[in-house]
C-alpha cells in the first residue's frame, strides 16, 4: 500500500460513526446547556478532523496495520532485550469479555469478586516466582515499576530519617536507562558502574561507590549482554552493609524462571515486566504492566490499594498510611494482569521452568549459529554460556566493509523480520542483540540465522545493496535531519502544514 495520511482522505459530510443525539424530550427539558456558558468557553469551530465514511476509516487503518510487522507475523528474535514471546490468543479473549472490558473500577466490590480474586491470585503466584513477600501490580509497565521501587526506597529512607543523607543510587551501565533516569527524577544522584573486561559490572567500582550516601543499588541480572553475574549476592551484601537497599530489575527474568529468584540473592525489591516475561502483548509500546515485589519490611510503602482476602470476600485496602500513594489510577492495567495470570496458569511450575530452559537453549543454539557468520563477534566473557539473550558485535564487519550494524538491520527488514539497533548503552561497538525466547521453533531460529548470514554475505560481496536498504519495506531511507531541526520538525499535521507546506490554517 502507498497509504496516504488520514488528513488527505475523505470528503466534507462523510461520517465514520454517528453518536446518539439528545432525545427530543431531553432537549425540550434542558435546551442546550452550552448556552449557559460564556461564549469564550464554547468551542467556536469544530476540530479540523478528517471526514471519512466508516469503511474508508477501516480500510485506512487496516492498511496501516498491514504495514506493521507484529510479533505474530515474523520470527521476532531481533528485538533483543524485549522478550518477544508468544502472547497466547486465548488470553486476549478473556480481556475482551465484557466481564473484564466493561467493568468500572468504582463498581461495588461485590460485583467484581472475580477480578479481585484474579489479582489476588496473581500476586500469590508472583510472590512464589520472586520469593518476595508482597507484590504490587499497579505499575503500568517496567519503567513505572522501576519508578515505584525508587519511590518505595525513598519512602523507606524517609521513614528512617535518612533520606537527606542517602541521596545516591547506584546502577549499572547495562541496566535499562530507566533505572538511572527514575533515580535522577526522584531526586537521587546517579552512580553508574561500568562493565569490567568480562562484561560484568565492576565490583571494585561498587566497593568504591558505596557509603553512607548510598540509598540503593538498582541492578539487572542477567544484563542485556545475556551474561549472568555470578557475584550478584556479593553485590547485594556490599550494598546492604553500607545501609542501602537492593532492587533487582528482572526485565530479563525469562531465562531463570524457577531457577533462581530475587529472594535467594538477597534483594529487597524486584520488578517484572509482565509484557515481557509473562507474555502480555507489547501493543506497539504499551499498555503493558509491571509488578513490584518487596520484602515484608517494605510492604507498607507499596502503592495503594492492595487486594486482600478477608476469609470470605476479596476487598480493596486503601487505608495504607505509609503507602507511596497512587502510581496510576485504580488497580493497575487489569487486562494485562488477566493475561499474565492465564499464562502462568496454563503453564504451572513445570511449564515455567520449561519456558526458561527452552529460552536459554534457543539462545545458545542461535549463538552457536550466529557466531559462525563472517564479521560477527561475541564480546565479553569468552566461552561462558549466555542466559536469555546475546549482545553481538559487528565491529569486524564494520572494519571490513564500512557498513554499520544499523545498515544490516535495515537490510534484514527486507527479509520480513525485525532487527533492533537501539542498544543503549552504546558500549559494545556495532551492537546487535538477539533474544529468541522459548516461543520460536528450531526452524524459525535456523531461518533467522540464515537471514543474518545472507545479509552479512551481501555486506561483503554487494555492500551497495545493504547500504541503500531497505528495498522491500513500505518506505525508503528516511531523512533524519528534520527531526532535530525545530524549524521543520513536524509532530502534527497542523504543524506540518504551517511549517513545511507554508499554509495558514
Amino acid at each position, binding site marked *: 500500500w502507498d497509504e496516504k495520511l488520514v488528513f488527505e482522505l475523505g470528503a466534507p459530510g462523510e461520517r465514520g460513526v454517528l*453518536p446518539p443525539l439528545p432525545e427530543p424530550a431531553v432537549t425540550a427539558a434542558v435546551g442546550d446547556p452550552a448556552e449557559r456558558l460564556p461564549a469564550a468557553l464554547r468551542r467556536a469551530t469544530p476540530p479540523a478532523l478528517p*471526514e471519512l465514511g466508516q469503511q474508508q476509516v477501516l480500510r485506512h487503518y487496516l492498511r496501516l496495520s498491514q504495514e506493521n510487522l*507484529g510479533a505474530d507475523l515474523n520470527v521476532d528474535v531481533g528485538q533483543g532485550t524485549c522478550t518477544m514471546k508468544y*502472547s497466547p490468543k486465548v488470553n486476549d479473549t478473556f480481556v475482551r469479555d465484557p466481564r473484564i472490558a466493561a467493568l468500572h473500577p468504582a*463498581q461495588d466490590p461485590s460485583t467484581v469478586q472475580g477480578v479481585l480474586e484474579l489479582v489476588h491470585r496473581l500476586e500469590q503466584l508472583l510472590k512464589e516466582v520472586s520469593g518476595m513477600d508482597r507484590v504490587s501490580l499497579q505499575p503500568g509497565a517496567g519503567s513505572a515499576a522501576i519508578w515505584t521501587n525508587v*519511590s518505595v526506597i525513598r519512602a523507606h529512607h524517609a521513614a528512617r530519617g535518612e533520606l537527606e543523607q542517602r541521596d545516591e543510587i547506584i546502577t549499572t551501565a547495562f541496566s535499562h536507562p530507566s533505572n538511572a533516569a527514575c533515580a535522577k527524577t526522584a531526586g537521587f544522584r546517579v552512580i553508574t558502574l561500568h562493565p569490567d573486561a568480562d562484561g560484568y559490572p565492576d565490583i571494585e567500582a561498587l566497593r568504591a561507590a558505596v557509603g553512607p550516601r548510598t540509598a540503593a543499588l538498582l541492578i539487572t541480572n542477567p544484563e542485556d549482554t545475556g551474561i549472568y553475574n555470578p557475584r550478584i549476592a556479593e553485590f547485594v551484601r556490599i550494598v546492604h552493609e553500607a545501609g542501602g537497599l537492593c532492587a533487582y530489575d528482572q526485565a530479563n527474568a525469562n531465562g531463570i524462571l524457577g531457577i533462581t529468584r530475587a529472594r535467594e540473592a538477597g534483594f529487597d525489591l524486584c520488578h517484572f515486566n509482565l509484557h515481557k516475561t509473562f507474555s502480555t502483548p507489547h501493543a506497539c509500546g504499551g499498555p503493558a504492566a509491571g509488578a513490584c515485589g518487596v520484602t515484608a519490611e517494605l510492604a507498607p510503602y507499596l502503592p495503594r490499594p492492595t487486594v486482600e482476602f478477608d476469609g470470605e470476600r476479596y476487598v480493596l485496602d486503601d487505608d495504607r498510611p505509609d503507602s507511596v500513594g497512587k502510581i496510576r489510577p485504580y488497580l493497575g492495567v487489569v487486562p494485562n494482569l488477566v493475561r499474565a495470570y492465564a499464562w502462568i496458569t496454563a503453564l504451572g511450575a513445570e511449564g515455567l521452568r520449561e519456558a526458561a530452559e527452552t529460552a536459554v537453549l534457543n539462545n545458545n543454539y542461535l549463538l552457536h549459529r550466529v557466531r559462525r557468520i563472517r564479521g560477527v563477534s561475541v564480546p565479553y566473557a569468552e566461552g561462558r554460556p549466555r542466559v536469555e539473550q546475546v549482545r553481538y558485535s559487528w565491529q569486524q564487519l564494520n572494519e571490513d566493509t564500512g557498513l554499520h550494524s544499523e545498515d544490516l538491520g535495515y537490510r534484514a527488514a527486507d527479509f520480513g523480520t525485525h532487527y533492533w539497533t537501539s542498544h543503549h548503552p552504546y558500549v559494545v561497538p556495532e551492537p546487535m542483540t538477539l533474544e529468541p525466547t522459548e516461543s520460536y521453533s528450531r526452524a524459525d531460529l535456523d531461518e533467522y540465522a540464515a537471514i543474518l548470514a545472507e545479509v552479512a554475505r551481501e555486506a561483503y560481496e554487494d555492500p551497495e545493496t545493504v547500504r541503500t536498504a531497505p528495498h522491500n519495506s513500505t518506505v525508503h531511507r528516511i531523512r533524519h535531519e528534520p527531526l532535530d531541526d525545530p524549524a521543520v520538525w513536524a509532530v502534527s499535521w497542523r504543524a506540518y502544514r504551517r511549517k513545511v507546506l507554508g499554509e495558514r490554517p
Partner: protein
Amino acid sequence: MSTRVPRTHPYIPNSAPQVRKAMLAEVGAQDVEEFYADIPAALRLDRPLRLPEPLGSEARLVAHMEELLSRNTAVPPGRSFLGAGCYRHHVPAVVDEIVNRSEFLTAYAGEPYEDHGRFQALWEYQSLMAELLAVDVVNVPTYDGFQAAATALRMAGRATGRRRLVLVGAIDPDRISRIRDYVRGVHELVLVPADPAAVRAALAEGDAAAVYAQLTDHDGRVDQELPQYIELAHQAGALAVAHVHPLSLGALTPPAELGADLTCGDLQPLGIHPSYGGGNAGFIGSADDERLVAEYPSRLFGLVPTDVPGEYGFGDVAYERTSFAVREEGKEWVGTAAALHGIAAGVYLTLMGPHGMREIGATILANTAYARQRLAEVPGVELADPRAVHFADFTVRYTGERTAAEIAEALLARGLHGGTPVGADEAGAREGRYCVTELHTRADIDRLADALEEIVK
C-alpha cells in the same frame, strides 16, 4: 495406537523431546544445565516453584477463567452511573477491530521501515489530538492522565526553574496523590479553591512554576474561571497547565485557545474500554515551542521525507531529550507506556470527525443537565452546585436520613450502579457522585430518579 506421546506445550515448541535433544547435540551440550553454569548453587532454587497444577488444555483454561469471570458483573451502560475518571462511552466496533489486529497488538519497537504502520498511526494520533486540543505538539501517550498531569507539571517546573505548583479546585485526590509522589522533593504543591482570588493570593507568594486548573473538574463542573487562572498564571510568569476531559472538547473551548501552555488529560473516554481501570492513557499537548518541546520526556514522532520524493517517513523528533538516549541526563524517563491506546484514540477521532465530536459533546451536556434536573426533583436530593454547567459527572447532596453509602447500596440492590459516596469519611458521607454519558437514554435517567425517589427518605 494408544501409546502416549509427549504433551509438548503449544507455547514452547522446542520443548518437544526430540527437538530439544537434537538442538543440544548441535550445540554440543549434554544438558541445559550447562547454560546455567554461571548461577551459583547457593542462589539456585532447590525445589520446584509451588504453583497450582497447570490446566493441561486450552479448554480447561477457558473453563477456569470463565468461572472467575462469571463472578464479575458487566453492567449495561444504561444502569451504570459511575464515572469520575473512568467512563463507559460507546467504543465503535471499528476501533476494536483495529487495536485487536495482530499486527498492532503484538508489535513493539521496530524501525520505521518494517513498522511504518505503527509510526504513521501514532503520528496521526498526535495530529488528530492536536486538532482536538488546538495545539501543535502532542506526545506519544504516557501511562495515564495522572502521569500526564505530573509530567506536565515537572515540564513547567523545568521550563520555569521554579518550585511551587498551584493546583486549583476540585481535583481527584488520587491524581493529587500521584502528583505528590512524582514531584516530591522537587516541587511544593499549593492546593487552592476554584476562585481567582485564591489563585491570585497563592501566586502572590512568588516562585510559582505553574497554575494547574481543569476545564471540567473532578465533580464534572465546567470551571468558568479557567481563562482567568490562565491569565493570572501568565501575569505571575508561571505556565498554565490545563487538564481536560477530551470528549468535552467538541463542545467546550480547548484551553490552548484560551492561552494554556500545556494541556493534559486522559485518553480513556476516546474509544477505550474501562477494563476495571486498565484503559487509561495520558496525553500532553503544547504549542510547537522549542523550549517546551525540549522538556517532553515522551517520544514525539515526526513526519519527514525519505529518499523517494513525495514519500512520507516518520522518526523521533529531538530524540536526545529522552532517557533512552542519554539515561539520567534525559528528561525524566520514558519506557513502554500506552501506545496502542493512542492508536485507539486516533481511530476514534477519525470515525467521529468534527461533527461527531461536536454532537457527542452536546449530547453529554444535555444528558447531564437532564439528569441533574431530574435528580434535583427528587425530594431529599439536591444538587451540590445547582447553577453550574456540568459535563458527565455531577454530585448530589442527600438531605434525608440515609447516608450516601446506604443509598448506593439500595441502588445496587435495584441493579443500578452509582451514587459513590464523596469524601474521606465515606461511612458518614451525605454526598454521592453520578455520571451520565451519551449512552444513557431518558428512560435510563428517569429510572434512576424513580429509584432514588423510593430510596431517599
